[in-house]
């Protein structure tokens, strides 16, 4: 249980969880991310905002090496997770992704039961020694995903039969089931209605007590509501990065100001 001790220590002094230095991403000849330096803190919600096509998703996907699945994608620079380079040759992306979970734009539960959706990650990583341990993990994860009360009576029902908002919370529960340290969310609310969005936002705020959360959003209100740090991307550059309050009230860069006031879209 050395996880617990680390959690307690981290509450007072916010460690740097991910440190990205001079990151470049190319899709073939397209230079999608240019020279991005960013420090993501533990137990913090960091929001990535910016006009569409500016590279938010691309950068987010570098953080758990999901870009590896795109043949033409090439990443340069250093991304350190707890001081270790995640693009090191010795790093297996499979292990990395268990530590850095991801929630996608469109809710994508497996076409399996709710139970199996959540149990899949722990199963393949061997986190449970027996059925009752697995049951425990599933329940704990569904509770953290704030969906336990809604589904506890129908764990055998297909995950795809839930409403959009429930599906997205199920996906969050699935992501936390592997005990990740960082949660990446790529526009997790863009396919949801306002009520479901509010529920997910509330959940993100709760998740902050345990995880470092990085959320891409196209809604500035959302960024303002849930995040403590905000990064503004524009045309592949990180234009401004700082406290959310400061970015929204007193941006340094004129491009940030134009975007926030609605002049670049």
């Amino acid at each position, binding site marked *: 249980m050395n996880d617990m001790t680390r959690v307690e220590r981290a509450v007072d002094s916010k460690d740097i969880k991910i440190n990205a230095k001079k990151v470049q991403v190319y899709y073939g000849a397209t230079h999608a991310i240019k020279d991005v330096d960013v420090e993501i803190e533990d137990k913090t919600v960091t929001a990535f905002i910016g006009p569409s096509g500016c590279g938010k998703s691309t950068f987010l996907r570098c953080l*758990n090496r*999901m870009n590896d*699945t795109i*043949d033409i994608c090439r990443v340069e620079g250093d991304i350190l997770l707890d001081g270790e380079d995640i693009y090191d040759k010795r790093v297996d992306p*499979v*292990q*990395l*992704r*268990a530590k850095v*979970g*991801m*929630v*996608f734009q*469109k809710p*994508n*539960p*497996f*076409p399996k039961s709710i139970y199996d959706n959540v149990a*899949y*990650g722990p199963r*393949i*990583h061997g986190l449970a020694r027996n059925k009752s341990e697995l049951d425990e993990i599933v329940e704990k994860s569904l509770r953290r995903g704030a969906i336990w009360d809604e589904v506890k009576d129908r764990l055998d029902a297909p995950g*795809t039969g839930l409403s959009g908002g429930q599906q997205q919370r199920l*996906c969050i529960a*699935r*992501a936390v*089931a*592997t005990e990740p340290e960082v949660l990446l969310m790529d526009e997790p609310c863009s396919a949801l209605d306002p009520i479901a969005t509010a529920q997910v936002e509330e959940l993100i705020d709760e998740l902050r007590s345990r995880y470092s959360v990085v959320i891409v959003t196209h809604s500035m209100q959302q960024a303002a509501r849930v995040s403590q740090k905000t990064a503004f991307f524009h045309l592949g550059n990180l234009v401004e990065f700082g406290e959310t309050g400061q970015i929204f009230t007193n941006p340094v860069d004129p491009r940030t100001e134009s975007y926030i006031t609605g002049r670049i879209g």
Partner: protein
Amino acid sequence: MTDASMQSPETGRHTISLTATDERTQKRARAEKRFRSYGLAAIGTGLFFLVVLFTSILSQGLPAFQRTVVSVDFTLTEPQRDEAEGTLFKTKAYSNLFVTQLSKELSERGISVDFDEAAIERLLGKVGGTIRSFYAENPGKLNEPIKFDLTASSRVDGYFKGRVSRDTIQDSRFLQKSDLDLVDALEEAGIIKQAFNWPFIIGADSGVDNPGGAGIGASVVGSFFMMVVVLGLSLPIGVAASIYLEEFAPQNKFTDLIEVNISNLAAVPSIVFGILGLAVFIQFMHLPQSAPLVGGLVLTLMTLPTIIISTRASLKAVPPSIRDAALGVGASKMQAVFHHVLPLAAPGILTGTIIGLAQALGETAPLLLIGMVGFVARGYPDGFLAGFTEPNSAMPAQIYTWAARADVGFYEKAWGGIIILLMFLLTMNIIAIILRRRFERRW
């Protein structure tokens, strides 16, 4: 509504009633109606030809499932046996005994007809030989009445089925006009009748002048062993190749080349595969000729492109979000494919495989080139492994051989064989549909 409502009184603005269609709308409606009738006509034409096809297949092929049999009670005593065995022409002696007993039985029923041993031979083939070998094998059955079911010759069968009539018959060594009196008498006595033709279903091919004895069973077995080879090779190879190409292979010139070649292979005429099989498997690798193993190998080559193309299509149809989801929780690429993508693609893969197998089952040309012609199917293989290597034919090749033979009795057998082949294909297609329904999942 009346016209009054069309004119709004305050503004005086003229509004067009929805109940009156204008010129453009009418034109569109007419165009749509025309298109529908074209569609219906097309479907109607298709259905018409289907009905014609099925009625002709059924009307021509169903008689093959009926045969004409003569069932006679025959008793052979021991002294009779010993006497017959003492003569020079032993089977002829047995034939004569048979003739005597048959005419006695007929006259007991008050029917008198004159016939000799030669007439019986024209009707029933070599009866004497059949009886003699029966008693040689079962000496214990002497002195008691035994029921012999003897298949009537193809001409007599044709007389019952309307192929042969008194007016058209020409005296020949196969059948003479006078023989028909005997046939009528036997029918009156209830000795000759129509029965279900089991020998057609379970039997093997017969000689060119014995259409009555021809059966499709042996070539069904040949087809079965070929399908075992095809399924056992093309499903694993095809699925593995598709998964590799679709999920793992890098996109480059080399994989592009492979892709183009697979698509082209699917369009190569089957006879090309046949001659390839002859050159490579038989002449170069010295595998046995006419063997279902070789037939299966050739058909595997033909089926692989079909399976690969349909498997890749069904892998492509699995939404990428499922792969992302699996990779996102830390599954390896292989786990993502085998745990999530493959189960979702399975119905499509199964359907493609069964359609590929059905194509292979109906393929004739390449089998003729490697020697799996119909007349090779003279019996069942001894045992399971021998089924792969012993010379045999396959259903379509057997049908082709029968259709090419001179005797019209074989023509009927060819149509009957087609009914059997179609039944197998229909079953396979129904299985494909059931599997697809059962495994289909929504996401």
